[in-house]
């Protein structure tokens, strides 16, 4: 093989690998310009998601949080890691060395999920020890990030130190340098490439980390990955793709710029190898300046960010809600949180800051609150979870005098089973699970009851819920079983039914249902009524989505409550009251497409007009006799033993 051949084949190979690496990025880029909300059907060019992105306070806040966190974690771990590497390099004792190497390796060898859980356990323990209401906050998140970033810095710096001739430092010191001066004059310039690579790695890892942040973040800080993860009940919007596209071009520009300016220095260092120190007196001054400048920039940035987050002494309200479950100002809608802050300041003359964070499931929220890891003032869980929390003394009774708008809630929605005395809750939205199907694939004659989801004709076209409660629920409604049975045999029966269905199921889904139904990837799926319209809005040309309610199905209510860890109950009640006021309530109902129990909403003419006849019909079909149906068909809280049993059944289903 000739040299040119080898060159050519390696070029082709490199190109292929990079094609693989950049394929998804091209997808991101293209779909960020999509006109519709779909991430799999391209319907036309539009810049609207970019506009939306800049109007979306929550996402921008999450982005800012991620960047602040990454910069702080990088700064700390770079300094500490470099110092540690120098220390490790000086160790002569074999055992010390082995011990330090092991410790450094642990965060790298340990799976993220273990690092995350283990740190959470410690933070919660320490928090309880000091009786803190919330043990997870920006500090804990920062500690966690520094912990997993530092080893990467050490591993980058250590080899550079080993390559360095230690006699040089001694020489410098013999010539009158102090240890510190010798470090800045000799050591640092030599190891600088390692330090910089380490810092870049730390920054990258911190920015991209999801798992560890998921377990160690608190109410005051939601990073971008967590924000995206909690969108999994609704859907990830092209807005996120737009954000990714912007990040892509910014980093590309930064890194290219960095390469252009740096490459000359680096070439010299590479070529001269060990002799670099001969020429480095001049260089070192230059490098030192650069490092110093970098350091100053970092410090300024960090302190700026910290002062604007901690500095002002103001009222804080921590709200914990489902992802994508509030009108957030996108598509020129009402920005509920911002409006509340403005309204509050106008009315009470005091500033309030709302920390708005989101969860992806009731269970996710429950685990966080019950572990004592976090404290929230307002939460919006579903009925069965409310029952459980009330039962366990995790909710505070509300003072309805502070919530005068409660009078607008339809009587049908007061005193439901989860809150029989009407003391803990204010309903936010309700709904019924229905079946969505693609009429271009499914024969309308087959679209009957739950049987459609077990119809072998549509094998590999059926979507089932990817959470145990809803999936078993579907099977139980189909079989006419009690969805709240305390008899294990009933659950076994439902399990058998799900086993029968399993070969027909294309995918177990939560938010993935949107893309799969819209693109025609799947033809049948059960989901919450309002979400059907979101899918219709984005369906592909050859897809015709239809909807119906099975005879027996799940009725649910999501309600606002105040958990017992709340620190400012009156403020929380004022917020709840605000959420019931006309502008906010209508905007939220329009945004989420879910039915509202609030009279001001469903009797509002603009709302009725905006929604249209079909939507109103489907959403409010059950409004006449809701309470009656609800009592029969709602999920109730199950005992921990039952939940454990169902959970292990669910795992069994998944390993088949």
């Amino acid at each position, binding site marked *: 093989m000739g040299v040119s051949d080898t060159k050519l084949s*390696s070029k082709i*190979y*490199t190109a292929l*690998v990079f094609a693989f*690496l950049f*394929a*998804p990025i091209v*997808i991101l880029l293209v779909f960020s310009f999509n006109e519709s909300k779909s*991430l799999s059907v391209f319907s036309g060019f539009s810049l609207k998601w970019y506009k939306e992105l800049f109007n979306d306070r929550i996402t921008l806040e999450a982005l800012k949080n991620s960047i602040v966190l990454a910069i702080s974690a990088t700064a700390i771990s770079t300094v*500490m*890691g470099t110092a*540690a590497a120098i*220390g*490790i390099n000086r*160790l002569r004792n074999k055992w010390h060395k082995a011990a*330090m190497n092991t*410790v450094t390796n642990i*965060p790298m*060898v340990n*799976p993220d*999920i*273990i*690092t995350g859980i*283990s*740190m959470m*356990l*410690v933070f919660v*323990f320490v928090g309880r020890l000091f009786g803190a209401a919330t043990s997870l906050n920006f500090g804990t998140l920062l*500690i966690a990030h*520094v912990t997993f970033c530092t080893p990467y810095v050490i591993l980058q710096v250590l080899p550079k130190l080993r390559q360095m001739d230690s006699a040089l*430092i*001694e020489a410098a*010191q013999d010539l009158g340098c*102090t*240890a510190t001066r010798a470090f800045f004059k000799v050591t640092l310039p030599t190891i600088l490439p390692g330090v910089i690579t380490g810092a870049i790695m730390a920054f990258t890892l911190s920015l*991209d980390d999801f798992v560890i942040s998921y377990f160690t973040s608190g109410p005051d800080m939601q990073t971008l*990955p967590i924000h995206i993860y909690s969108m999994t009940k609704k859907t*990830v919007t092209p807005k*996120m793709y737009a954000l*990714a596209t912007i990040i*892509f071009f910014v980093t*590309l520009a930064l*890194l*290219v710029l960095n*390469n252009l300016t740096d*490459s000359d220095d680096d*070439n010299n260092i*590479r070529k001269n190898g060990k002799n670099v120190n001969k020429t480095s007196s001049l260089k070192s001054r230059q490098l030192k300046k650069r490092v110093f400048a970098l350091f100053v920039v970092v410090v300024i940035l960090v302190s700026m960010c910290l002062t604007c987050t901690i500095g002002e002494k103001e009222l804080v309200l921590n709200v914990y809600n489902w992802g994508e479950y509030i009108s957030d100002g996108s598509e020129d809608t009402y920005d509920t949180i911002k409006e509340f802050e403005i309204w509050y300041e106008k009315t009470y003359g005091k500033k309030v800051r709302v920390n708005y964070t989101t969860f992806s499931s009731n*269970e996710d929220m429950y*685990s966080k609150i019950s*572990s004592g890891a976090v404290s929230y003032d307002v939460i919006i869980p579903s009925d069965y979870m409310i029952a459980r929390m009330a039962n366990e003394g995790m909710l505070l009774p509300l003072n309805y005098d502070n919530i005068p708008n409660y009078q607008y809630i339809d009587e049908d929605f007061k005193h439901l089973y989860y809150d029989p005395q009407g003391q803990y809750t204010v309903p936010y939205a309700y709904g019924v699970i229905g079946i969505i199907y693609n009429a271009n694939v499914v024969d309308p004659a087959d679209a009957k009851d739950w049987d459609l989801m077990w119809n072998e004709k549509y094998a590999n076209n059926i979507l089932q819920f990817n959470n145990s409660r809803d999936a078993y629920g579907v099977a139980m409604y189909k079989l006419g079983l009690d969805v709240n049975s305390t008899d294990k045999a009933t659950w076994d029966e439902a399990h058998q039914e799900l086993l029968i269905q399993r070969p027909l199921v*294309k*995918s177990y*889904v939560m938010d993935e249902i949107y893309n799969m139904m819209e693109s*025609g*990837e799947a033809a049948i799926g059960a989901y919450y009524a309002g979400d059907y319209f979101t899918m219709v809005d984005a369906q592909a040309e050859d897809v015709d989505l239809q909807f119906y309610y099975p005879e027996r199905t799940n009725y649910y209510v999501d309600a606002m409550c105040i958990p017992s860890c709340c620190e400012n109950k009156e403020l929380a009640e004022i917020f709840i009251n605000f959420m019931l006021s006309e502008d906010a309530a209508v905007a939220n109902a329009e945004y989420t497409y879910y039915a509202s129990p609030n009279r001001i909403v469903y009797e509002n003419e603009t709302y009725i007009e905006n929604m249209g006849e079909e939507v109103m019909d489907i959403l409010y079909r059950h409004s006449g006799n809701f309470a009656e149906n609800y009592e029969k068909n709602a999920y109730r809280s199950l005992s921990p033993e039952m939940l454990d049993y169902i*959970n292990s059944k669910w*795992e*069994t289903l998944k*390993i088949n």
Partner: protein
Amino acid sequence: MKKTEPISRKGGFGISLMPYSAWSLLFVIVPLIFVAYYAFTDDNFRFTTENITRFFTATSAVEGDNGTVSEVKTYVVIFMRSLKLAAISTVICLVMGYPLAYIMSRAKPRAQKMLVTLIMIPMWMNFLIRTYAWMTILQDTGIFNSILSCVGLGPARIIGTETAVVIGMVYDYFPYMVLPIYSIMTKMDVKLFEAARDLGCNSFGVLKRVIFPLSLPGVLSGINMVLIPSVSTFYISQKLGNGKFFLIGDAIEGQYIANNLHFAAAIAFILMVILLVFMGLIKYFAAKFVYGGE
């Protein structure tokens, strides 16, 4: 000012190592002790080995292809599947990444920097979003299948299969394989290759006897950095496996969500022990393989 003895001659723990030592003790060692503590206690913090035994004994009925039902150990099966997929991904990363790392290390300095940059860029996109984009590519009506049908090939079912999960893992962790190997290879002296050639080695011999042994530390840390996160991932399997592939990470997350912290810690503890032993063995045998009888 008093002239100080260079610290390097003193040995022992220097001041520069203090912050990191304290930090590691508090935030690396102590958390691990907590995991062990939770793994061996019940909800009332009384000692129990039940969580550990549950991992090895919990069974579930599985229907085979021919309709026969057999009992299998739930978590052992889940763990083996995770390990299998992670091992496949790691091997693919290595086979794909090794030549690339070599090519990169032999490129011109400016090109080298550019290539490293290009490899790092995807990591700056959020990994959840990257995985989402793969869904768009791999689904049955997705872009990959559109291309296949354009060339007249039938649709391939990828999403929801093990292949899709492996693709996701390879994609997400590929840079972690390439970068350590590349960084070792840049330090290799080209003269060594020439010397080996002069002594009668062909290209393969140079690779086997010189390049590979020298790059081994990079390969090992690459394996480490790909294998570990792919064993424990829980997002990729949810999204690209169509929710049908339950991996050990999903099991831990599921138990955390179900508020069974103690059992979650037990699974984590077992996973940790197995991985530590596994990585130790790999290192041991790799060293043996390369340095032979020495």
